[in-house]
C-alpha cells in the first residue's frame, strides 16, 4: 500500500505536466457550456436549473472520458515502461486502482471547473441546489463508470487510438441500453423480463435517477459495480499480457 499513493500522485500530476490536459479541459468546458446554452437553451428556458447541462453530459462524456483513459495503459505498453512499473513493489490491483483513481480525480477537476454554470443559475434565479449537487454527484459516478471501461480498452492495445475507439464504442452501447428507442428495437425479439434487465444495465437511467435529486443506494451500487467490473477486466487483460 505504501507505493499506492506515490503512484496515484505521479499519475494525477502527470496529467497537469502535459499541455494536452489543459487543451482537454478547455475543450471540455467550451463543449459543456456550448451544449448547455446553445443546444439546451439554458438562458431562454428561463428556469433556474442545470438540467440542460446534465442532459448533455452523458453524450459529452462519451468522447471525453475515453480520451482521458486511452493514455493510461496503452502509453505504458508502447513505451515499455510497463515492465518498469511491475518491477516496482506494487501489486497489479494497486497499479490499476491508482491509475484509475488518478484519471477519475482529473475528471473530477474538469467537472468542478464547470462551477461558473452553477454560479450563473444562482445569479439569475433561485435553483434547487440540492438537485444540482445530486446532478454533479451522478455525473462524477457516471464519469467513473465510463473511465473504468476506458482503462480496460486502453490495456487491450498499444495503440492509444484503438483504445479510444473501443472505449467510445463500449460506452456508446452502455448509453444506448437505457435509451427507449433502442430497447424498443430489442423488445421486438426479446422477452419483457430480459428487456427489463438490459435497460437496467445502461448508464443513463441510473444517472437520471440521481440527477433528479434522489440519491438511491441501488444507483450508487450500480455505478460502483460497473467500475469494479471494468477494473477487473483491466487487471485480467494485464495479467494475461504479463503472463505471455
Amino acid at each position, binding site marked *: 500500500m505504501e507505493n499506492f499513493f506515490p503512484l496515484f500522485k505521479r499519475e494525477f500530476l502527470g496529467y497537469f*505536466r502535459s499541455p494536452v490536459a489543459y487543451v482537454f479541459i*478547455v475543450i471540455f468546458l467550451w463543449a459543456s457550456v456550448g451544449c448547455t446554452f446553445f443546444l439546451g437553451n439554458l438562458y431562454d428556458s428561463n428556469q433556474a436549473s442545470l438540467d440542460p447541462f446534465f442532459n448533455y453530459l452523458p453524450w459529452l462524456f462519451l468522447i471525453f472520458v475515453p480520451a482521458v483513459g486511452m493514455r493510461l495503459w496503452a502509453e505504458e505498453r508502447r513505451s515499455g515502461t510497463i515492465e518498469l512499473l511491475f518491477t516496482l513493489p506494487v501489486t497489479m490491483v494497486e497499479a490499476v486502482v491508482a491509475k484509475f483513481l488518478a484519471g477519475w480525480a482529473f475528471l473530477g477537476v474538469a467537472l468542478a471547473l464547470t462551477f461558473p454554470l452553477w454560479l450563473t443559475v444562482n445569479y*439569475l434565479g433561485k435553483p434547487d441546489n*440540492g438537485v444540482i449537487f445530486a446532478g454533479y454527484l451522478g455525473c462524477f459516478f457516471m464519469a467513473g463508470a465510463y473511465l473504468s471501461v476506458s482503462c480496460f480498452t486502453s490495456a487491450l492495445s498499444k495503440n492509444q487510438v484503438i483504445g479510444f475507439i473501443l472505449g467510445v464504442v463500449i460506452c456508446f452501447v452502455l448509453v444506448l441500453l437505457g435509451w427507449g428507442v433502442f430497447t424498443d428495437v430489442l423488445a421486438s425479439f426479446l422477452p419483457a423480463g430480459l428487456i427489463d434487465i438490459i*435497460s437496467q444495465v445502461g448508464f443513463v437511467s441510473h444517472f437520471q435517477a440521481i440527477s433528479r435529486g434522489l440519491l438511491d443506494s441501488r444507483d450508487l451500487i450500480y455505478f460502483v459495480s460497473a467500475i469494479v467490473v471494468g477494473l477487473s477486466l483491466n487487471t*485480467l487483460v494485464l495479467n494475461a499480457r504479463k503472463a505471455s
Partner: protein
Amino acid sequence: MKLLKAVTTTSSGLAILIVAIVSLNIISSKLAFRADLTQDKVYSLSVGTKSILKKLDKDVTIKLFFSRSIKELPIPIKTYATRVEEVLQEYKSLSAGRIVVEVIDPKPDTDDEEWALKYGVSGVRLPKGDQMFFGVVLLVGSQEIVIPYLDPRREEFLEYDMSEAIVGTLRKDRVKIGIMSSLPVMGSGNAMAGQEGDDTWAFVNDLKRNFNVEKIESTVQEIAADVKVLVVLHPKNFAESTRYAIDQFVLNGGRLIVAVDPMSRTDLQINSAEMRTSGQMPKVNSDLGSLFQAWDLQYDGANMVGDPTFATQINAAGTQTAYPFFMSLGEANLSRNSVITGNLKMMLIAEGGSIAHKGGATSRFEPLITLSKDSGVIAGAMAAYMMPSDLSRDLKSDGKEKVVAAMITGKFPTAFPSGKPAMEGDTQANPSRPHKTTNDNETSIVVITDVDLFADGNAVDKFRFGQQIMVRARNDNLNFLVNAADFLGGSEDLIAIRSKGRIARPFDRVAEIQKNAQQRWQSEEEQLTSQLTDLQKKLNDMQAQRTDGNRYVLTAQQQSEITRFRDEERKVKQKRREVRKNLREDIEKLGRQVVAANMLFVPLAAAGLGVAMFLRRSRKYRKDRHGVSK
C-alpha cells in the same frame, strides 16, 4: 501453458466477482436506502401523510394495477411504476399493519384484467395495440376510491394523490361544499369528469375529489344546513334575498369562501356577444356590498390592481409585453403564516382587486396574498376597452401595499338588522331557521378579489391521453381554493402535503431587468408619444390657418414648415421603435454576457495555467540541457 493458467485463474476470479456483483445488485434492489436531496423534500413522505397514517383506524387494501409484462412499455413509465411501488411500500410500513399493498399485472384476457376494468382503472392503448393499465384502487370495507391512471407528469403530486385517496376512504360522510356562481363553472354536464367534452371548470373537479360538491342556484332563498363550506364565485347581480341567505349561512356557523372581481375577463369573454349586439359594456364586476361591510371589509370594487414587479409576459396583438395586471406572485407575496398559503409557491392573479380591514374592528384580518409598494390601481371599467400596453402605461404606483386575498375571523353582525328582506315572488314564507343577528361562535371567511385566476385558462394545462383529458396545475391557483376549502372544511393533514412539487423557478434577475426596462421604456415612450401628438397638433393648426381663399395653395414657408414637421415626426417614430427594441435588448445583453463569462473566464485561466506550465518546463529543460553541455 502459463498464459492459459493465468487466464483461467483470473477468469475464474472474475467469474466469482461478476456473480458477487450481480447478486449484490439484486440484493440491493430489495434493500434500498434513499437520500432525498431536493430542497422541498419532493421524494419523502411528509408530516401530513404520517399523521393521516397514524390516525388510520380501518384496514385499507391498496391494489396497484400495472401491466409490467408488456414489452414495449416506455422506460419512464416503468421507472415511475417502480417509484409508485416504493411509495406504497412506505405507506404500508408507516401504517402499523393497517395497509396491505397488492401489485397486480393485469395480462390480457385474465380475471385481473376484468377486475381492473370493473374498478374503473383505465386501459391506455399503446402504439402497437397493447392495452396498458397503470392505476390504483383503494378499498376500505365496501368503499372504493380509484385513481384511473397514474400520470408520470404528476410525479410530484403522487404523495398528495395517494394521501388524498386514503383520507377520502376514511371520511364517513364527505364534507358538503356548495358552489354558487354567476359563471358556468359546473359545466354543461354532457360528459364524464376527465373525459373528452367535459367543460366543468378544473377547480370543481378538484373539489369533487374530496368533497360532496353541490351546485347552489344564485336565486336561492336559504342555504341548506348540511352545507359546511360555501364557495361564492363572482356574485354578480345577486338578489337581496340571496345575499340574505349568504348572511344567515355565515351567522349560522357556515364557512365561506368568496371570490369577487372588479373586472372579470372570463365574464367579459362569455358576454362578448352581448357587447357586440347591444354595443354596451356588460357588467362584469361583482361585489357583496353590505355583506362585506358587516364583515369589517373594505373592498375596492371599482379599481383593478397591478404591480410591475410581478408583471407576467403576455402576447398582446402579436407582441410580447410584460403586463402588470397579470401578476405572477411568489413566496414573498403569499403569507407564510397561513396554512392556506404557507406552502404555495406561485400564483397567477389575473386582473384582480384589493381589500382592506375596516379601521377599529374587533375581527382579525389575516392577509393571504399581498402586493408590493410598487403596485397601483386603474379603473376596472377601462380594461375592457384599452390595450394592455396602454393599461400598463397608465398604471401609477401609489406606494401602498395591497391585499388581494385575506381571511377574516370573528363574530359579525347581520347585514340585515330588520330581518329577511321582503321580495317579490317570495315563496318561502317561513324559513326553516330563525333570523340570526350575529354568530354564536367565531367564524372565518376567506375573500379573494379575483375570479379569473380560477378559470382553466389561467390555472391548468390540459393534455389528451387516449380518451382521457389530463389536467395539470400550471400554478398554485387551484391549490389556494382547495386549501381554503380543506382548512375551512376541517382537514388540515392534507394541507401539509399539498403543493410539494417542483414548480417553475424562473430567473428573478431577468424579471427585474424586464421591469426596469419596461419602466424606462414607458417614460421615454410617453415622452416621444407626447412629442408626436404635439407635432401632429401643430400640423393640424397650420392647415387650419389657411383661409378658404387659398385652400389649395400653401406658402413656401408653410410648405417647408410642414416638411420639417413631417421629417421630425418620422424621426420621433423611428426613435420610438428603437426604444421598444431596447426593452428586449437588455435581457438579450445579459444572456450574451452570461454565455461569454462562462466561455471565457475558467477556460482562459486553464489555458493560461497550461501555457505558464509549459514555459516553465521548457525553461527548466533548456537550463538542464545547458547544465549538461557545460
